[in-house]
């Protein structure tokens, strides 16, 4: 029926035995996706060959969306709608942004609970912004692996608390990813070193990302990766160095420039660029365009830079000492220090870390890639492809506690306890016939409630009515292998299970997640529409090309009326190609095929004649 079949028939790929699973490093500045192919982990690239996806999402005024490099390019021009470093906002409340407010040019919606940003597409939560980044990575993976993903391992800073982990998992859920595991970034890096470089012994993983710092101590032994202790700062990273440099640039040009978000963005990008250049060079300068349109440049020496950023680097040392103390390890017992994160390229950092641990740090695996590569190895193992000897034993990074009398916190599970872990605690009623009670769960190391992170308030209902003090409610706090908390409760005497209602302090409740999922389904519908349009367009193009090449060769086979009919159908097709209607494209392509039937038939006959020329009918029929 088709004009002329050009493509090879039935070239679909055979069903794959290997389950497709990926590791995703959802970073503050960049994100990337990796997978294991032929037993080797490798990062996946986009059509332009880039593997780092800038973690930037632009909600454009024309209701379209840009993610990655294209969004970052717009950051200076459209600062309110271009969201960068969203990881710093994950699982956080609006009132916690004081320290970041001067730095981030977004319009934060005032209110309780988690942060919301005002964009051209309405209010967006950090979870939704992150989901857009994950969606692009998922698409990249499915395109380059040629199939649907079984699941993904997504990395989080080891020091992320429950709210931040839950937010990450919610984002993956929104992006349509099945999360096999949330994996601590330093653990992922250790996995890459342990399996790729065959490292064994005690290792310190020093991970300074764009916005987070983690130090993890691990014991690596025959496929067992045991986290002994982890410590860090979830609001300290390479970005802080950039901001220090940016402040210097801003004050240098204070008289020539206002403090517009666009100018701030430009300065921030320049600051990062000069920091990166000074990792290689002793001195460097950057070009800037002043708000007046005038070109300017700014010069900096490495020595000067180092004096500004040294305090940031030194701030990482207290968590290092804390982790060593928690694990009961002296620095000289460590067999290797692994550097992770782009910010660890800074030469001064390498020097100071070497001094702290008394040995040169390792950076054989690209510090930008190592986390994603380790996550890919874990994803491959979890998808059931191989590696039965691999065992990861991680810990709870921050203590879990309950609010008690006088606004104090009673710790129930201390930090650095191996997970999964559970702890049961008994409570009693203080009024006759009391059937409900409320529990406030906190995470952190401090004594007072207000100095710790509020995770959630759990209300227990359905307690059997008894005299005061007679009901014994056993509440179990279970932390799973993702480091996520779950609470269940039971009245010990009667065995009645109390109903637990969770009100996350800085998270999304189930209802909000359901609503967002529905919205993203609508999004997915749009995506399907887009794909159908693209496919219809490709098909229409193919028909046009086939027709043109047939006409070029054999137009003489047609009479004037036939040629006129084909030309009419052809212009209808060209018109449809200029539009956006799937139906019009399909109709026009069919119209061309129908009008050209006569041409196809004559060409076929002509071909048969040519083939039979010089042969007798008898010869053919014998075949």
């Amino acid at each position: 029926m088709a004009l002329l079949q050009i493509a090879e028939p039935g070239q679909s790929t055979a069903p794959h035995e290997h389950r497709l699973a990926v590791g995703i490093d959802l970073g503050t500045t960049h994100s990337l996706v990796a997978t294991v192919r032929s037993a080797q982990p490798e990062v996946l690239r986009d059509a332009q060959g880039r593997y780092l996806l800038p973690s930037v999402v632009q909600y454009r005024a024309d209701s379209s969306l840009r993610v990655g490099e294209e969004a970052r390019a717009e950051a200076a021009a459209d600062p309110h709608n271009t969201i960068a470093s969203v990881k710093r906002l994950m699982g956080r409340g609006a009132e916690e942004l004081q320290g970041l407010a001067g730095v981030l040019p977004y319009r934060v919606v005032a209110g309780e609970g988690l942060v919301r940003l005002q964009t051209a597409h309405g209010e967006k939560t950090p979870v939704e912004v992150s989901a857009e980044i994950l969606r692009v990575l998922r698409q990249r993976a499915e395109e380059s692996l040629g199939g649907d993903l079984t699941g993904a391992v997504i990395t989080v800073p080891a020091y992320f608390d429950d709210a931040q982990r839950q937010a990450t998992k919610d984002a993956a859920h929104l992006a349509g990813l099945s999360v096999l595991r949330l994996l601590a970034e330093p653990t992922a890096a250790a996995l890459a070193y342990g399996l790729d470089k065959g490292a064994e012994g005690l290792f310190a993983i020093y991970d300074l990302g764009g916005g987070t710092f983690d130090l993890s101590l691990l014991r690596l032994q025959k496929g067992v990766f045991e986290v002994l202790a982890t410590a860090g700062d979830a609001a300290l990273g390479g970005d802080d160095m950039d901001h220090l440099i940016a402040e210097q640039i801003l004050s240098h040009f204070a008289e020539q420039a206002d403090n517009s978000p666009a100018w701030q963005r430009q300065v921030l990008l320049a600051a990062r660029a000069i920091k990166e250049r000074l990792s290689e060079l002793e001195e460097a300068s950057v070009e800037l365009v002043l708000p007046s349109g005038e070109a300017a440049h700014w010069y900096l020496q490495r020595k000067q830079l180092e004096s500004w950023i040294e305090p940031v680097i030194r701030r990482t040392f207290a968590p290092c000492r804390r982790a060593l103390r928690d694990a009961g390890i002296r620095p000289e017992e460590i067999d290797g220090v692994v550097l992770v994160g782009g910010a660890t390229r800074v030469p001064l950092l390498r020097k100071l870390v070497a001094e702290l641990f008394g040995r040169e740090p390792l950076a054989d695996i690209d510090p930008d890639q190592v986390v994603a590569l380790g996550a890919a190895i874990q994803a491959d193992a979890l998808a059931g492809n191989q590696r039965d000897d691999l065992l990861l034993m991680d810990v709870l990074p921050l203590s879990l506690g309950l609010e008690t009398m006088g606004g104090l916190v009673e710790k129930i599970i201390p930090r650095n306890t191996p997970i999964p872990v559970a702890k049961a605690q008994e409570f009693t009623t203080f009024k006759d016939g009391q059937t409900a009670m409320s529990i406030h769960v906190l995470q952190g190391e401090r004594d007072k409630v207000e100095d710790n992170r509020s995770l959630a308030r759990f209300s227990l209902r359905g307690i059997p009515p008894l005299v005061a003090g007679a009901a014994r409610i056993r509440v179990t706090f279970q932390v799973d292998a993702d480091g996520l908390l779950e609470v269940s409760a039971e009245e010990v005497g009667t065995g009645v299970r109390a109903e637990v209602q969770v009100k996350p302090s800085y998270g999304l409740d189930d209802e909000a997640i359901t609503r967002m999922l529905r919205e993203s389904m609508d999004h997915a519908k749009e995506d399907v529409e887009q794909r159908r349009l693209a496919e219809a367009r490709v098909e229409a193009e193919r028909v046009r090309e086939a027709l043109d090449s047939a006409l070029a060769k054999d137009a003489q086979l047609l009479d004037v009326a036939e040629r006129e009919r084909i030309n009419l159908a052809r212009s209808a097709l060209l018109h449809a190609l200029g539009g956006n209607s799937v139906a019009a494209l399909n109709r026009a392509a069919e119209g061309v095929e129908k009008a050209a039937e006569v041409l196809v038939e004559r060409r076929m006959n002509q071909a048969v004649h040519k083939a039979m020329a010089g042969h007798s009918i008898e010869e053919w029929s014998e075949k």
Partner: protein
Amino acid sequence: MPECRACQAELAPGSAICTQCGVLQPFDPSLSLFAVLGLEEGFAIDPAALRRQSLDRLRALHPDRFAQADAATQRQSLEWSTRINEAQAVLGDPLRRADYLFTRHFGHSALGEEMGSLRDPELLMRQMERREALEEAAGIRDQSALDMLRAQAHAEERQIQEQVAAAVAQPRAERIAPLLQEWQYLRKFLAEIDQNEEQWDFA
């Protein structure tokens, strides 16, 4: 004999995985921490065997092994792994191991509130002296003094551990409980040393 939940094969008590069909069994909360790890019950324990048994069990039962399984199986894996981690923590710490054995033997912990506070005046005196030394060292941020206090406390712990090991042959609550209580005090003291150092880091 318990039966496999899937193929009804007979299983040894405490089995996590059916030897016939390989299906993960529901966790049995009545198993002792020793039984969870397949160790013989007693105060004397080989740390290498404890680690080996824990790792072997976790390798087979960790939630990572069941990432693709149904929710019920994942739940069982979570419960098994949680209990293995608990066994590792409790049995791996001689004080907690001793108190776990005490609880199994006498029906209550030696360290709970119902046991009352220390009555031995000599012990109380030692505890007060340690406290004063710590306050003095912390006040002037004397790291080497802190290190010495820590080493002393560790040495005292080892002594108590030997006394407990000798006492468990004929367990008497009134002999063992005070030992465990003093041990607990030493632990608190060591934690205070850590807290003091940590405050320096945060300051």
